[in-house]
């Protein structure tokens, strides 16, 4: 079994944060945690290539790093790709997730990584990958590698994978058919009875958990603040130039309102299949309140309004998608030095 293993500059022994800019390099054989992984997998398992990359380099040059890594993984003729464990290291987790996802779709070989549930890489890639739950403590390295090796072995011989709890990977949000002894009604009554008796029971409905979002500081002085308008109500210029889908949109657009005091229905259309758009078509200010923002700008209540508004369609969209678009929009606003955003949602 030929394995390619990806690790960051820290686990690769290059250095700490001061070496986070180190570019991708390939070394023959196992390095650091790869040695233990090889032992745990046993048999003919061999880490043929270790890819090492600085965390900053990996995230800042993701596209070229991915292309470079894929070339090296192809050359190594790998049967299995492993990344991490990344624990709580966010950039490491994001690089590991991106790599696993790319290798899986490009070469159709088993891939596995490990990180903590709170790692941003987990949010981005959990739907597509088996990500072993590493927790946040790197002292658990051995334990995590054991779980990774067990799961990797199963993936290699294509045996069915059990539930996240049994196998030790992060929930992927997938629904799977399963035969059970009791009907839904019986299980429900069992749960109610357990609840009444204050006995433990496990719900079969796991609501999607959202990590708390830290509250950004308030705007100290509105009269100096630069505002941006964003909507997920699907308002786009006539002809929908960015072809933003009206459902499960993968794209967003940025549209000029420079020199415009009032949005006119004839210049816009709505790409959103989830609400009756006739009222917004009549007057798009009902969704993107440009007329009022201009008033407030002229009166000096607010500093200025950025010359474009951002728009996408918020309907039946996987979280991985909306989170990505949200990050992209936030990055744009940050780069432009925007102080406050009003997001309008249908």
């Amino acid at each position, binding site marked *: 079994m030929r394995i390619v293993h990806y690790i960051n500059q820290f686990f690769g022994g290059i250095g700490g944060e001061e070496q986070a800019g180190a570019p991708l390099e390939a070394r023959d054989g196992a390095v650091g945690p790869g040695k233990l992984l090889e032992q745990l997998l046993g048999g003919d398992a061999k880490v043929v290539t270790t890819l090492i990359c600085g965390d900053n380099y990996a995230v800042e040059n993701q596209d070229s790093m991915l292309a470079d890594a894929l070339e090296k993984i192809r050359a190594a003729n790998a049967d299995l790709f492993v990344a991490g464990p990344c624990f709580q290291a966010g950039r490491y987790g994001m690089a590991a997730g991106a790599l696993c996802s790319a290798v899986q779709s490009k070469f159709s070989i088993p891939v596995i990584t490990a990180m903590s549930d709170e790692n941003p890489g987990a949010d981005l890639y959990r739907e597509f990958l088996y990500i072993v739950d590493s927790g946040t403590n790197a002292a658990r390295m051995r334990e995590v590698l054991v779980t990774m090796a067990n799961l990797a072995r199963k993936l290699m011989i294509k045996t069915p994978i059990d539930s996240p709890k049994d196998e030790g990977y992060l929930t992927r949000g997938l629904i799977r058919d399963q035969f059970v002894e009791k009907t839904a009604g019986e299980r429900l009554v069992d749960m109610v009875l357990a609840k009444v008796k204050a006995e433990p029971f496990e719900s079969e409905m796991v609501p999607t958990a*959202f*990590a*708390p*979002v830290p*509250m*950004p*500081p*308030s*705007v*100290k002085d*509105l009269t100096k*603040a630069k505002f941006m308008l964003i909507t997920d*109500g699907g308002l786009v210029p006539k002809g929908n130039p960015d072809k933003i889908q009206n459902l499960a949109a993968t794209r967003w657009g940025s549209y000029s309102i420079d020199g415009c005091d009032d949005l006119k229905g004839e210049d816009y259309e709505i790409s959103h299949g989830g*609400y*009756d*758009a*006739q*009222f*917004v078509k*009549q*007057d798009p*200010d*009902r*969704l*993107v*309140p440009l*007329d*009022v*923002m201009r*008033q*407030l700008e002229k009166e000096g*209540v*607010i500093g200025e309004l950025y010359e474009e508004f951002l728009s996408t369609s918020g309907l039946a969209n996987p979280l991985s998608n909306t989170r990505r678009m949200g990050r992209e929009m936030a990055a744009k606003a940050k780069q432009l030095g925007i102080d*406050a*955003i*009003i*997001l*309008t*949602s*249908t």
Partner: protein
Amino acid sequence: MQITAALPVAKMIGANRTVLGNGIVHVLGDAKVSPEKEKEVRRRLVEQALSALQSDEK
């Protein structure tokens, strides 16, 4: 901050600053009143949004 007619959704995902809009079909409008009155409705909602942005309370 977010102005939305579907406040429970915004709260569920953890939005910190929210204002309840005036209906799904026109978050910042009111088709039942005159255009002048409607603009006042819109202005009031935007002013609420501005206060939310100045506040450090949820």
